[in-house]
C-alpha cells in the first residue's frame, strides 16, 4: 500500500541526491584543476540542509557558511549558475566575483555562503529585526557549524535573538570536525543544546543523518518560529565524509571512521531503504539518481564552455561613491 508520505520523502531523496552528486563532482573537478579556488564539500551532511529547507518557503531567508553548496541547492539556487561560479565563469551565481565560498542567490532567499564563521548568526538576527520592522511574513534560518559555536558572536547572537524574541532558527550542523580539529576536544560544557538553553532559547537534538527525522523536527521548530514564539535552535549531528577542503588529505582521522559512517549512518542510503520498504521500486530511485547525474553532467559541461567574466567587471559593484581607481 503506498504510504501517504512517499511523495514528500521522494522529494527529500531527490534533493539529497542533487547535493551529493554536486559535491562529489566538486571533488572530481578539483582534482582536475578546473576549480580555481578552494571548495568545501558537504558530502554526508545532505539530510540536514534538505530536511530543514524542506520546511521553508522561498521567501524565507537563509544565511549559510563556507560549506554552503547544499544549503544553496536545497533553497533552490540554480546548479548551472553555481558551476559557473565555481569555475569562475560569466553567468555564475555571483558573476564570478564570489566562488564557492560566496555562493548567494537572493532570488530564492539564499543570502549567501560566507567565509567568516559566526557572521551568519549575527546577520541573521539583524535580518529578523528587519522582517519585524517591515511587518513581513518570513523567518530566518542560519546554518552554523559545530566549530562556530566557540566564537563569541555566536553567543551574542543567541542572547540577542532571545532578548528581542526574533523569528530566527539556528541550525547547528554538527559534522564532528572544526576544520581539522575534533570539535569535542576544544569545547567545554554539556554541548550545543545546553548552551542555547542557558540563553533561554529552546533547543533540540536531532539525528542529522535521518532526513525524515530532520524534516519532521524542523516542521515543529519552523512552525514555532513562524508563529512568533521566538528563536529556536536545532542541533543536527551528522558527519563530514570529505575533508575540510576538497584537497584535504585527512591525516587527522582514521579511514575506518568514514567507512563506519558510510555503512551505518549514511543518509541517502537510509532514505532509499525507507522508500523501498514503503513501496517505491529500486528502479524509481535509480531513475531519480540518473536524472540528477545527467543534469550535473550538463551543468559542468556548460560551465566549462562558458567564458571568464569581462575583466572590466572587476570595477563594478564596489560602491556608489568614489571611483575604484584615482588615475583612470
Amino acid at each position, binding site marked *: 500500500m503506498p504510504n501517504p508520505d512517499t511523495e514528500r520523502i521522494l522529494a527529500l531523496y531527490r534533493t539529497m541526491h542533487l547535493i551529493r552528486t554536486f559535491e562529489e563532482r566538486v571533488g572530481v573537478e578539483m582534482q582536475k584543476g578546473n576549480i580555481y579556488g578552494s571548495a568545501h564539500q558537504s558530502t554526508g551532511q545532505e539530510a540536514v540542509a534538505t530536511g530543514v529547507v524542506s520546511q521553508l518557503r522561498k521567501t524565507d531567508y537563509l544565511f549559510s557558511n563556507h560549506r554552503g553548496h547544499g544549503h544553496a541547492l536545497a533553497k533552490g539556487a540554480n546548479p548551472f549558475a553555481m558551476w559557473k561560479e565555481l569555475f569562475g565563469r560569466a553567468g555564475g551565481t555571483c558573476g564570478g566575483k564570489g566562488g564557492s565560498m560566496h555562493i548567494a542567490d537572493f532570488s530564492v532567499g539564499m543570502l549567501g555562503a560566507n567565509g567568516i564563521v559566526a557572521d551568519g548568526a549575527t546577520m541573521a538576527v539583524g535580518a529578523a529585526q528587519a522582517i519585524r520592522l517591515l511587518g513581513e511574513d518570513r523567518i530566518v534560518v542560519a546554518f552554523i557549524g559545530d566549530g562556530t559555536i566557540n566564537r563569541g558572536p555566536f553567543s551574542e547572537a543567541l*542572547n540577542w535573538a532571545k532578548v528581542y524574541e526574533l523569528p530566527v532558527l539556528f541550525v547547528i550542523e554538527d559534522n564532528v570536525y572544526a576544520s581539522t580539529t575534533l570539535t569535542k576536544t576544544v569545547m567545554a560544557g554539556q554541548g550545543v543544546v545546553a548552551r542555547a538553553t542557558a540563553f533561554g532559547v529552546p533547543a533540540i537534538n536531532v539525528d542529522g543523518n535521518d532526513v525524515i527525522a530532520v524534516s519532521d523536527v524542523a516542521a515543529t521548530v519552523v512552525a514555532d518560529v513562524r508563529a512568533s514564539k521566538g528563536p529556536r535552535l536545532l542541533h543536527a549531528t551528522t558527519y563530514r565524509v570529505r575533508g575540510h577542503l576538497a584537497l584535504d588529505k585527512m591525516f587527522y582521522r582514521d579511514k575506518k571512521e568514514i567507512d563506519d559512517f558510510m555503512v551505518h549512518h549514511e543518509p541517502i542510503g537510509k532514505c532509499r531503504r525507507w522508500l523501498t520498504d514503503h513501496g517505491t521500486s529500486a528502479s524509481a530511485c535509480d531513475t531519480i539518481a540518473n536524472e540528477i547525474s545527467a543534469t550535473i553532467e550538463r551543468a559542468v559541461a556548460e560551465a566549462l564552455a562558458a567564458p571568464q567574466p569581462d575583466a572590466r567587471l572587476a570595477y563594478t559593484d564596489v560602491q556608489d561613491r568614489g571611483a575604484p581607481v584615482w588615475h583612470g
Partner: protein
Amino acid sequence: MARMTYADAVRHALAEEMRRDKRVWALGEDLSTAHGNSSANQYTGLIDEFGSKRIVNTPISESTIMGAAVGAAVAGTRPVADLRMIDFGLCAIDELVNQAAKIRYMFGGQARVPLVVREAIGLKAGMAAQHTQSYEAWFAHVPGLVVVTPATPADGRGLLKASIRCDDPVVFMEHKDLWGLEGDIDLDDEGLVPIGKAKTLRAGIDLTIVAWSRMTHVSMLAADELAKQNVSTEVIDLRTIYPWDQQAVLASVEKTGRLLVVQESVLAGGFANEIAAEIAQQLHWKLHAPVARLGAPRIPVGYAPALEAEHRVEAAKIVQEGLRLVKASKT
C-alpha cells in the same frame, strides 16, 4: 535659524530621516537610556517619538550590533548602528570589513548594504589610550566603504542625512570633543551636505591647509595667526575622507603652491599621507615647497596632561610649519 550643539544637530538629523523613511532605525548600547547625562546625547528623547522597535537599546555586543545592521540592511531596512566610539568599534571590525564592505561585490551586485555605522573618533581630555583613537585611515583603505568626518553642527546634520540616504555602508565619524560645539542650523532647509565634497573655510593665496574633523578648527586658529604674519592661508575642510575631494585640493594647491595636511591621528600610515602623495605626484613641478604633514607621534595617548599633550597637534605647531613652508620656498 537655530543655535544648537553638534550632538543636538545630529540627533535632529536622525529624527528627520526616521520621519522621512520608515525603514530607517537605530541600534546601539544605551540609546534609550543615556538621556542628556553627557555631551553624547545624540539620542535623547528619540525613544519617545519612535519607540523601541526603531530605537533599539542593545546589549554590549559589538559584533552583533554591526552584524545585525548588515543583516538588516540586506533585508531591506536602513539601519544606523552606533558603536559609540571607534575604540569600541574595533570589536566589530570583522562585520564591517568582511561583510558590510564586501557583500555587494562578492555576491555580484545582488544586494546593497545601506547602513551607517557611527564610530566617534578623537582626543578627549583625560580619556587615555583606549577612548581617544582616530582610525579614519583604516576604513579609507577598505574598498566598499564611505568615510565621513564632519567638523561642525551643520555638517554633522547634513552629512548624517546624506549618509542615511546613501546606498553604500558609511562609517560616520563624529569627534567626541565636538559634540558640545555650537553652530547655526537652518531647520527650514533640508541641509543635505553631499558626500565627497570638501568645504573651503577660508580663502588664501600663500598656503593651503587641508584638515578634517577637529583639526579644521585648530587650523583656522592657526590661519588667523599666520595672517598676522602676512601669510594668506586657505583652509579646506575635507569633510569626507573617502571619497576625498581631490579636485578641491588640487585647485587650491595649484593656486597657492604650498600644501600642509594636518591630522589629529598618528601620522604614520595616516590619511594625510594619501593626500600628500597624491598632490606631490600630480603637482610636483608646480609646488613652491615640498608637501608637508602634521600629525601625532606614533605613541599611544597618555593620561597625564603632560603626556597627552605630546599627542596633540596645536595651532602653534601648525603656524610654525606654515611659516617654515613659506620661508623654504623656491620663489
